[in-house]
C-alpha cells in the first residue's frame, strides 16, 4: 500500500526504507547499535558540483537546488540528510534582508565560491549592559539594524518598556516616520522570501520522504558562547572579553543559554524532528585553556543540552577542529541522549572515552576526501568500522564536516559503498 506524503506518493518499499532509516537514527542516539551503520549526507556546495550547476545557482535557484540535492540523496541512499536547502539555497533571502554578515556569490565572492562569514564586532564591549538589561530592546534598536539592512529604520523605534496609559499611544509616533515605514515594507517583502524558501524546503522534505529518506536533523542551534563570539563580539573581541569583561560575559552567556534553549525546543517541535544539529566553533583545544573552557564555554552549553534532553530532543553537537582535551569534560551528560559529531578529533579516541555515553558521527578528513583516492577513502572507512562499529560502537559515518564542496564524486561514492561493504 502506498501513502501520500503531501502531493507525493510513497511506495510501500520506500516507506519501509524510510522507517528503517528513521529507526536507525533513533536507536543510534539511544546507544543501541542499529542493523547497519548509518551514513549521513551533509554538505553545503558539493551538490552543485555533483549536479553540474554553479554555487550561485545552488544558492538562488530553488528548483535546481531541489533537483541536484534529491538526485544526490537518491543515488547515495543516506540514512539521514541535512536540510540542504535551508543551508545553501539562501541567496534570495540574504539579498532581500540585505544581510551584512556574509559574503556570497554575487555579493563579494564569485559564482563558484561558497559564502563566507565576516568576522566583525557586531556588539561593542560597552554594550553588554544594554544587552543584559533588555535583550529584545537591544535587538530591535541596535543588533538587527546592524546585521540586516531592512531593519535600518528600527534604530528610530520607540522604547516600549515603561510606556503606560496614554503614553502607550503618544510614544508610538516614530512608527509614522518615513524611514520606519520603509523598514516595515522591506521586512514584509523579505519575510515573504523566507516563506518561499520554507515552502520549497517543505516540498523538498516531502519528496525526500516519499523517496524513503529522513532528515538527519530538523533544526539547527548554536552554543551560547559561539553566538556571542561569532555573531556579536567577533573572534578577537570575545577573546579579550575573557579577561576584560568576564563577569558580564558570564551573565550574557547564562541568559543566552535560556533563550536559545527555548527557541530550539520550539523550532524542533515545529520541524517534527528531535535531532538538533549544533555546529560548534569555539570549543577546540587550541582556542582556550581547559580552565577557560570549563569556566566560560561548557556550563552554558551543558545547561542548554540538558534543557533540550528534558524536552525529549536529541542534541547533535558537531565539535569542530580537535577537541581531544575536552572529551572528559563533555562526557558529563546522561547516557544515550546525544550524538556527538567530531571533525578533527580522532573518532577512535573519542569512542574510547565517550563510547558508553553518546553516539558518534564522523569523520573522514577533508584532505582525504578532496585529494585522496577512492581506495584511500575505502581504507579510512574500514579503519573506523574495525575500531568502532565492530567493537559494538554506535556511530554514523560522515565526512569531518560533511562532504567538502570540492570532493570528487567517486570519493563520495567510495565512502557510501565502503559503509555498506564493511558495516551492513
Amino acid at each position, binding site marked *: 500500500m502506498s501513502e501520500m506524503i503531501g502531493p507525493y506518493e510513497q511506495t510501500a518499499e520506500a516507506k519501509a526504507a524510510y522507517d528503517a532509516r528513521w529507526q536507525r537514527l533513533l536507536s543510534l542516539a539511544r546507544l543501541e547499535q542499529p542493523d547497519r551503520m548509518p551514513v549521513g549526507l551533509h554538505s553545503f556546495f558539493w551538490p552543485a558540483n555533483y549536479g553540474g550547476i554553479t554555487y550561485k545557482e545552488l544558492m538562488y535557484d530553488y528548483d535546481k537546488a531541489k533537483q541536484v540535492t534529491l538526485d544526490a540523496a537518491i543515488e547515495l541512499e543516506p540514512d539521514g540528510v541535512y536540510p540542504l536547502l535551508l543551508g545553501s539555497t539562501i541567496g534570495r533571502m540574504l539579498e532581500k534582508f540585505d544581510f551584512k554578515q556574509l*559574503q556570497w556569490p554575487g555579493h*563579494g*565572492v*564569485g559564482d563558484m*565560491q*561558497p559564502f*563566507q562569514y*565576516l*568576522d566583525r564586532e557586531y556588539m561593542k564591549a560597552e554594550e553588554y549592559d544594554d544587552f543584559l538589561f533588555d535583550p529584545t530592546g537591544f535587538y530591535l534598536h541596535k543588533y538587527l539594524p546592524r546585521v540586516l539592512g531592512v531593519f535600518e529604520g528600527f534604530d528610530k523605534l520607540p522604547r516600549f518598556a515603561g510606556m503606560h496609559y496614554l503614553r502607550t499611544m503618544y510614544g508610538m509616533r516614530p512608527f509614522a516616520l518615513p524611514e520606519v515605514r520603509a523598514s516595515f515594507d522591506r521586512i514584509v517583502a523579505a519575510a515573504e522570501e523566507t516563506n518561499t524558501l520554507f515552502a520549497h524546503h517543505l516540498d523538498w522534505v516531502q519528496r525526500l520522504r516519499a523517496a524513503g529518506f529522513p532528515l538527519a536533523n530538523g533544526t539547527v542551534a548554536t552554543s551560547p558562547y559561539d553566538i556571542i563570539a561569532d555573531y556579536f563580539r567577533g*573572534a*578577537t573581541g570575545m*577573546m*579579550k572579553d*575573557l*579577561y*576584560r569583561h568576564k563577569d558580564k560575559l558570564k551573565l550574557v552567556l547564562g541568559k543566552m543559554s535560556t533563550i536559545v534553549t527555548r527557541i530550539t525546543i520550539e523550532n524542533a517541535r515545529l520541524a517534527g524532528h528531535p535531532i538538533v544539529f549544533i555546529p560548534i566553533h569555539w570549543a577546540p583545544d*587550541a*582556542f*582556550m*585553556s581547559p580552565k*577557560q573552557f570549563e569556566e566560560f564555554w561548557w556550563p552554558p552549553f551543558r545547561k542548554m543540552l540538558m534543557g533540550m534532553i528534558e524536552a525529549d530532543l536529541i542534541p547533535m553537537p558537531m565539535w569542530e*577542529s580537535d577537541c581531544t582535551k575536552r572529551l572528559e569534560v563533555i562526557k558529563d551528560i546522561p547516557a544515550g541522549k546525544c550524538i556527538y559529531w567530531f571533525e578533527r578529533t580522532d573518532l577512535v579516541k573519542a569512542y574510547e572515552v565517550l563510547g558508553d555515553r553518546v553516539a558518534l558521527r564522523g569523520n573522514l*578528513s*577533508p*584532505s*582525504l576526501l*578532496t*585529494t*585522496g583516492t577512492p581506495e584511500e577513502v575505502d581504507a579510512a572507512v574500514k579503519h573506523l568500522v574495525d575500531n568502532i562499529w565492530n567493537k559494538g560502537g554506535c556511530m554514523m559515518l560522515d565526512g*569531518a564536516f560533511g562532504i*567538502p*564542496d*570540492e570532493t570528487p564524486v567517486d570519493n563520495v561514492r567510495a565512502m557510501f559503498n565502503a559503509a555498506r561493504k564493511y558495516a551492513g
Partner: protein
Amino acid sequence: MSGMNEQEAQLVEWLADMREEEAHELANRMLLEEGADPLRVLELCRMAMDVVGKRFEEGEYFLPELVLAGEMLETIGAVAKPLIVQGEGGAAAKLGRVLIGTVHGDLHDIGKNIVSFMLDINGFEVKDIGIDVPVKTFIDEINEFKPDVVGLSGFLTLAFDSMKETIAAFEKEGMRDRFKIMIGGGQIDETVRAYTGADAFGVNAVEAVNLCRGWTGAAA
C-alpha cells in the same frame, strides 16, 4: 640585555600574566612621568612576549592570551614609539623576512593575523598582504619584498587548490627555490602539504615561528 631592576621586572611580569590595567599604568608612568628610555620599555615588552610565547608553547596559554598580549603591546607601543629620539638606537636587525597572505577565494584572517603578530614579536620582518590574494599579487609582492619565507593561509577546503595553484605559479615563474613555503589554517594537514607542494605546514603560530627560525638559521 642587562639585568632588570625591580620596576622593569614588575612590568614584564604583569604583561606576561595578562594583568593589563596594572601593566598599562606602570608603562605609562615609566614613559610619561619618569622619562624611561622608550626603547628599553619596548625591549621589556618583547621580553614579556617571550614569556607569553613560551607559556603558549607549554600549553598554559592559548589564543585569548596571544590576542590580549598583542593588544597590550600595541597600546604601549603607541605611547613609546613617538618618544623615541630619531637616530637613537636604531632598528634591531631582523631574523628574516616573511611574506604572508590568505590565498585567493578565502576571506579568513584570524589565524593569519595571529601568526603575523607572533612572527613580528619574535624578530621577523613580516609583510602581511591580506586576504583573498590573487596569485599574481603574491608574485609581485615576492619580487618586491624578497622574503625568506612565504606563508600561505587558508581556512576553507577551497584553499587546498588555491595553495596548489599559487605554488605552481611560483614554480613557473622560476622563483620557487628562492624561499621556503609554509601553509596553515583550519583543515591543513600533511596530506594537504604534499598536495600543494609546500615545504611545511603548521597547526599554530608557535609552529610557524619555529619553522621560520629553522629556515633562517635563527637560534630558538
